[in-house]
């Protein structure tokens, strides 16, 4: 093959692949094709789920064994028994604390006062997000349990997020701290005030938009979902409390940061509200 044609081949390959990628991204951004990609993602997640569980089942004991070996090598022979006992007690204490924490969260999930008559499905958080660029969690319930796309998810304290991917036995939830998340909220005083809370990224506070300048807000004041017509969340769910509020000179709106009420960094259990936004 002539050298010039051979040298062009990788560039042609790259060009084709770039065009294919751009086409996929563009089509995915449009409604129709997004359903297909969402379906493919769902199939992939369902297919990979058993592999993930099996590997986790193998890795966990190996990890525990290795962690234990490190301890064993470090102690003298005469102290081994004592050290073992201490380790055992510490482990027991940690597991008890862990179990208590889990039970607290689960109890809180089972008696969420703000859910009212809406039906919920409790779920365990199985994974803390697959991307460093998005604030999401995976939960252990899916379409088999009645979970559908866009359903709200709550935790102990308040709103957690919204289902963005529903597979057969699992789902992905976009947290309210994610940059793509926005929540219509209401607060008072003044009574019936409305605002929109947007995420600023994982672990960061929420920002409030559309709050009129010099609105009297105090730290700890609670914002709840507005539930207005067409809203993506039902009304009355506590979302966040005011952390700071100030109005700059000539500012068109007050600069407000808020702390989510649900502890989004240590989520163990959540509840999916079986409610879909009106289309």
């Amino acid at each position: 093959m002539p050298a010039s044609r051979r040298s062009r081949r990788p560039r042609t390959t790259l060009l084709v692949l770039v065009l294919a990628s751009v086409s996929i991204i563009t089509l995915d951004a449009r409604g129709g094709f997004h359903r297909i990609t969402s379906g493919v993602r769902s199939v992939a997640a369902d297919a990979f789920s058993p592999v993930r569980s099996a590997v986790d089942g193998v890795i966990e004991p190996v990890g525990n064994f290795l962690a234990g070996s490190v301890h064993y090598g470090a102690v003298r022979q005469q102290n081994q028994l004592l050290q073992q006992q201490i380790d055992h007690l510490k482990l027991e204490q940690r597991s008890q604390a862990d179990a208590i924490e889990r039970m607290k969260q689960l109890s809180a999930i089972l008696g969420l006062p703000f859910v009212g008559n809406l039906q919920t499905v409790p779920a365990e958080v199985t994974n803390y997000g697959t991307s460093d660029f998005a604030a999401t969690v995976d939960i252990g319930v899916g379409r088999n349990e009645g979970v559908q796309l866009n359903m709200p998810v709550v935790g102990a304290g308040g709103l957690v997020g919204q289902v963005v991917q529903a597979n057969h036995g699992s789902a992905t939830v976009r947290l309210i701290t994610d940059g793509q998340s926005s929540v219509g909220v209401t607060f008072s005083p003044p009574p019936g005030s409305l605002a929109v809370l947007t995420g600023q990224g994982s672990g960061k506070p929420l920002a409030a938009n559309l709050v009129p300048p010099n609105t009297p807000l105090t730290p700890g004041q609670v914002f709840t979902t507005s539930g207005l017509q067409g809203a993506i969340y039902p009304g009355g769910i506590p979302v966040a409390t005011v952390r700071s509020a100030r109005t700059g000179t000539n500012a068109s709106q007050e600069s407000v940061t808020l702390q989510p009420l649900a502890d989004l960094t240590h989520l163990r259990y959540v509840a999916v509200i079986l409610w879909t936004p009106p289309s």
Partner: protein
Amino acid sequence: MTARAAARMGLVFLLFLTVQQTVILDIRLGGVHPDIMILLPIVAGIVGGPGRGAVVGFVAGLVSDLFLPTPFGLSALVGCLLGFGVGAATVALDRTARWLPPLAALVGSALYELIYAVLGSVLGQPQMLHVDLARIVVLVAVTNAVLALPAMWLVAWALPQASTEGVPTSPVSSGVLR
């Protein structure tokens, strides 16, 4: 690529994906986890040249996109660019040098994350530039540099060597001049 090479490469993809989705996702420093899928186009670029680097990057990206909440196809786009770039940048270098894979992984991974965030932002995901990008870049680049040599062995086992694929060879390297 022969059917045998494709089957071997499929096994490598599956291995990387399984490790990424199980072990790696549990390793978190400051909320950030490594991403070993990026290693595939980097080492494929070194082993197989720019063309194969681009193809491996595209496929690895598409596979990653199945499990990511970010725009579908974005990882494939950045992956094929990275695979081609690494292949083209290393074609004139001694690919058997032990320092090459870790260095390429360090620089390539950092560039990948930066381009990924910028392109994501351009494609309507502005929050991708508001994450702790420095931490992501450092963690992913360093982890991949450490894992580059084992990844290189695996991909070299799967992919046929094509050190001069698609690139005009110099008279010296082609053996014309001795």
